[in-house]
């Protein structure tokens, strides 16, 4: 059995510990709230000689990802971390990392995007990543942020995946608040994460090769994208098997879709990130009063676990999706769009409603969640009567 140290730790600190234990070769990074603690803590590990990592304090996030791409192509286990405007600044590079099939691991402390400027938690930044070809984990708490980060190396570097992975934690709620966390001992983690041995790398001068080649007009650009789609789809099984392996090591259960009460729930909320716990808390209280409510929390958003989500929602009578990211002018938030498409694709016509909540770190209260469960009681009739907007704001003035 592994030695476990129990800590009062923030999510950022736990991510830094996970990075230390994975001992990456290169970590190019630029600090930005609310990811800063990760950088500060990791820099300490470098100064203390606890890691062998080449720590590269670059001048911007665009450079951080560019350096990460170069390092990863050179064959290094490469890690970075960012948030908000930093992730947005990396955007074009995110596609390069994924298209070149580089298994970079990046932590993102999910935060709002300007304007107006706001440093607090929502999913606006990370959803800019959703179509880039990065695998995306959403931690519910600091413990999951640690666990996801360790698993990310195994998934990213798996020869059948070879895609970058973003492990995400909600800004301040998870990145900064102190929680009870369990840290595995270094040897156990080293054995679990293993060594990264790339099949090909730029520094392998005996087998020279080039990355990021030109693929013009019909010259295998589409084929390369299809290969990415196949790898992403196939990664779900690998995410699950790595999760089960980690479960055996840590004793903590891993599911890509976490359910509560869905076995008999008529009204279900679908949600991601730190709010899963809040919704579960309210659902517990309501179920104690005999109300048939349930919660579906996604731990993985890319690849989208469509079958698992449908299985959890198939018996619901009314479904609310809570989105923490505006898609101004869109039909709904990213989570609602995916959920609606997943249900529609198997012919499920259960009424759904998208709730925009917690933008820019706006309070997610018990009352807000109770109201959503309450709304669901009359959702079908309200929709039929045309009384419900597709996208409904909650917690705003």
């Amino acid at each position: 059995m592994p030695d476990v140290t129990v800590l009062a730790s923030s999510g950022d600190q736990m991510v830094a510990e996970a990075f230390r234990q994975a001992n990456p070769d290169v970590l190019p990074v630029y600090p930005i709230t609310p990811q800063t603690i990760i950088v500060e803590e990791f820099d300490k590990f470098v100064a203390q000689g606890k890691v062998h990592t080449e720590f590269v304090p670059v001048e911007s996030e665009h450079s951080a990802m560019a350096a990460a791409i170069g390092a990863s192509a050179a064959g290094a286990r490469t890690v970075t971390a960012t948030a908000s405007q930093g992730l947005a600044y990396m955007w074009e590079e995110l596609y390069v990392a994924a298209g070149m099939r580089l298994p970079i691991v990046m932590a993102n402390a999910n935060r709002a995007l300007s304007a107006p400027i706001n440093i607090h938690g929502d999913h606006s930044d990370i959803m800019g990543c959703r179509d880039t070809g990065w695998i995306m984990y959403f931690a519910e708490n600091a413990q999951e942020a640690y666990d996801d980060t360790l698993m990310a190396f195994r998934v990213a570097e798996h020869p059948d995946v070879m895609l970058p992975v973003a492990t995400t934690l909600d800004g301040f709620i998870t990145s900064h608040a102190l929680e009870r966390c369990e840290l595995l001992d270094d040897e156990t983690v080293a054995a679990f994460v293993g060594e990264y041995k790339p099949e090909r790398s730029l520094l392998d001068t005996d087998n020279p090769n080039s990355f990021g080649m030109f693929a013009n007009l019909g010259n295998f650009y589409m084929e390369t994208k299809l290969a990415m789609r196949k790898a992403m789809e196939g990664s779900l099984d690998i995410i699950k098997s790595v999760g089960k392996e980690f479960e055996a090591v840590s004793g903590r259960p891993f599911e890509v879709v976490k359910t509560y009460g869905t076995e008999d729930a008529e009204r279900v909320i679908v949600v991601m990130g730190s709010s899963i716990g809040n919704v579960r808390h309210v659902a517990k209280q309501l179920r104690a009063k005999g109300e048939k409510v349930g919660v579906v929390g996604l731990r993985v958003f890319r690849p989208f676990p469509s079958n698992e989500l449908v299985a959890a929602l198939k018996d619901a009578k009314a479904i609310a999706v809570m989105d923490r990211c505006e898609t101004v002018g869109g039909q709904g938030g990213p989570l609602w769009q995916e959920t609606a498409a997943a249900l529609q694709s198997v012919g499920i016509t259960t009424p759904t409603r998208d709730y925009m909540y917690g933008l820019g770190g706006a309070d997610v209260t018990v009352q807000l969640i109770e109201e959503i469960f309450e709304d669901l009681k009359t959702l079908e009739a309200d929709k039929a009567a045309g009384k419900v907007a597709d996208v409904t704001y909650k917690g705003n003035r």
Partner: protein
Amino acid sequence: MSWDYSGNEQWTWDQIPLGAMTLEGGTATGHKTGDWRVQRPIWHTDKCKQCLICWMHCPDSSIKVSEQKMCGVDYEHCKGCGVCVQVCPFNALSMMSEKDARELDEKEAN
């Protein structure tokens, strides 16, 4: 050269190397990239002093050199940018339209 990428135009998604990687160096020599040239440099051997300034400036390594002497232009890779013509101190290179040059080539061949 050991990597066999013949027939790559027909490769399906699962045959392409990971991330569209090129699995060995120097493969550009096998790609004839001069076919979209509009004008071509013509080398006038009578004026050439073998200073090799054209060779130094060519951005596409298309000045052919043998035994330290300029010996022609690699038209399979020359893009017709005209840099060699600009830098030649002896007017030993001049540009001709690709159409005219090809017609001339055909006449000579016949």
